[in-house]
């Protein structure tokens, strides 16, 4: 296990899931990003010409765009990027059953202490590793309804027209520097299609991990929820810790067609050296609803603002996010809602916890275009500071071009108070337990929205992070 004294010296919290399993990659690109790497990726995947052209065009855009100067500190990023591998194919093919799941991955689940039943679901339904028993029975059920839940590569291969019609329509490569980067080197992720009127009770779950030292992860997910459909997609990650800087930049695109209802849940827990820069966006048509539920833990810097572009009448967007910034971490998160049609409505609820030298920033945009009459938006930010040193900031951007609309914004900062701690301790709870209970209560409005196993996992992760925070 490599160590980094510099990191330890500044007292970063020990990353609790501290392990690396030995994978043997079949193919690995050279370090850094250039045209050769992009061509290699495309050739390795056997892609059609249009996709190679798209990647190359995206690379040009990436090179032309300057590094953002807002948000978090990206000054070290150039040197990180010149040193990482932009493409590693971890296994020859996707695993097909639990028995085929490599022993080192099973060991990973052991180390995480994930219960047997949960493990099979988490064993990468739709991602790298599949659990035959759980996944295949669900998959048969889904296929009978015409649902597509594939890897993004299989989506391109097996559903070329549907794929090409929607791909990069929600997040075009020119949107931002990291969307351009992802467009050039994307690899992995999911392709999901829910046919008109289909309602899925069981959430679609993807579980993936970054497990290659110095490997950048550039997953790309494209989801199409057709008219009147209803579904929930869940993604969670637990990344092993590395000694060098790491980088993750995903793009998630979701098209929510008229009358559809889609929820995307993600709980991300990156190792403390990770730059996590993600573009998540949805296009929401008339009478449709999009819900983002976004949990960000770990990483060195996360910049992530799930967005809803409300383009049809009465479209609704909701963003619920929770961020935890421990020592040395900066969570720059929030949400964007764009009202571009009459009677659209949106809500953003953002909760953050900062501890020690951690910093949590809320950055949000609410834009109401002229003609979006009777649009309604409400933003609530709630920050909890665990100790004196912790920091939080709020950057709400509100742009309203339509007088006949209602936009509300509310921000609160609270400190875990002496009186609260005394109250709990006077009931017999040790200080650490008392602190954890206060924090659990603070995130309860978010945890309540999660499926049980994720709520449990979120609580467990935050408790691990909180260890040693008092006394």
């Amino acid at each position, binding site marked *: 296990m490599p160590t980094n004294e510099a990191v330890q010296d500044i007292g970063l919290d020990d990353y609790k899931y501290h392990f690396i399993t030995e994978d043997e990659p079949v193919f690995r690109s050279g370090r850094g990003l250039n045209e050769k790497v992009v061509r290699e990726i495309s050739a390795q995947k056997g892609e059609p010409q249009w996709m190679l052209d798209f990647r190359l065009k995206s690379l040009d855009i990436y090179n032309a765009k300057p590094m953002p100067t807002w948000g978090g500190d990206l000054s070290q990023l150039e040197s990180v990027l010149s040193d990482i591998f932009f493409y590693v194919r971890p296994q020859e093919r996707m695993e097909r059953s639990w028995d085929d799941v490599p022993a080192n991955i099973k060991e990973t689940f052991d180390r995480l202490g994930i219960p047997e039943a949960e493990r099979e679901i988490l064993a990468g339904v739709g991602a790298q590793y599949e659990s035959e028993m759980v996944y295949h029975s669900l998959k048969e059920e889904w296929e009978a309804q015409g649902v597509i839940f594939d890897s993004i590569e299989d989506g391109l291969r097996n559903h070329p027209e549907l794929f090409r019609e929607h791909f990069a329509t929600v997040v075009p490569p020119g949107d931002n520097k990291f969307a351009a980067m992802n467009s050039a080197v994307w690899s992995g992720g999911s392709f999901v299609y829910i046919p008109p009127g289909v309602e899925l009770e069981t959430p679609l779950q993807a579980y993936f991990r970054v497990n290659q030292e110095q490997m950048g992860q550039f997953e790309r997910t494209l989801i199409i929820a057709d008219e009147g459909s209803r579904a929930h997609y869940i993604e969670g990650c637990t990344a092993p810790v590395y000694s060098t800087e790491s980088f993750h930049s995903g793009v998630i695109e979701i098209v929510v067609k008229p009358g559809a209802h889609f929820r995307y849940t993600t709980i991300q827990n990156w190792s403390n050296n990770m730059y996590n820069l993600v573009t998540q966006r949805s296009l929401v048509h008339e009478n449709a609803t999009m819900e983002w539920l976004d949990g960000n833990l770990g990483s060195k810097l996360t910049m992530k603002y799930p967005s809803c572009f409300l383009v049809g009448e009465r479209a609704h967007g909701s963003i619920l996010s929770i961020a935890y910034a421990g020592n040395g971490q900066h969570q720059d998160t929030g949400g964007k809602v764009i009202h571009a049609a009459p009677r659209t409505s949106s809500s953003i609820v953002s909760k953050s916890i900062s501890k020690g030298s951690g910093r949590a920033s809320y950055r949000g945009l609410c834009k109401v275009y002229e003609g979006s009459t009777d649009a309604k938006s409400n933003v609530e930010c709630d920050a909890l500071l665990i100790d004196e040193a912790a920091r939080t900031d709020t950057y709400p951007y509100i742009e309203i071009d339509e007088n006949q609309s209602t936009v509300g914004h509310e921000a609160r900062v609270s400190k875990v108070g002496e009186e609260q701690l*005394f109250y709990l301790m006077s*009931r017999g709870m040790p200080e650490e337990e008392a602190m954890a*209970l206060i924090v659990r209560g603070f995130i309860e409005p978010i945890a309540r929205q999660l499926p049980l196993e994720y709520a449990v996992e979120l609580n467990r992760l935050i408790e691990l992070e909180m260890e040693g925070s008092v006394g």
Partner: protein
Amino acid sequence: MSDAPILKTAGLRARVTDEEIEILKGVDLEIRPGEIHAIMGPNGSGKSTLAKVLAGHPGYEVTGGSAFFDGQDLLELETDERARSGVFMAFQYPVAIPGVSIANFLRTALQARLEDGEELDLFDFQDILLERMELLEMSPSFAERAVNDGFSGGEKKRNEILQMAVLEPALAIMDETDSGLDIDALKVVARGVNTLQKERPEMAVLLITHYQRLLNYIQPDFVHVIVDGRIVRSGGPEVALSLEEGGYREYRQLQSTASAA
């Protein structure tokens, strides 16, 4: 009633942390199991400070004297250790803990009383909670609400009493310093204390109050009058009655004579 006191303070002195002026200037108090003591005093006399010092509030520091609880040096124990050994303080204005249900709060408090590695059985806990709520004539749905979040004065008191019922302290300190203003809240406290003491006659109670009114509902065995950080008079219920008539005036005079001397 046993002879060994459950709580014994001698010359207990205390001040607000980092401030010069002492608020408690030598409090002597002995409470035996099963006894109900009332401490009454004018505003600023130190009666609420006494409650907080006994419970271990970090905002106060003990500057002298001693306090023993059940034979242990109370002042050596942390707030949570005091609670686990049987001290309970019902807060006058308990704070809200948003997002934490009363049930969850109590489960955590009971779990904290178990040995390391021991796990509170959820079904057992549920049984205890429901049984306690029935005893206190509370609706089970009350335990699902977030602790004191948006509670009325009466609901806050109900919550304090429920906690006391579940945690079964050896000594219950009721800080009701100015709750005379809310008669409903007062009745909740009185009914709760009476019910619980009837059930567990060994429980000792220390009532901190400004007004005699609370004592119409809870019959104390002993009444102490505290003025300027010292107990200036102790006796039976009649002490409270004389206060009802004469107020604290004669004690204030006593106090000014004392400080003049």
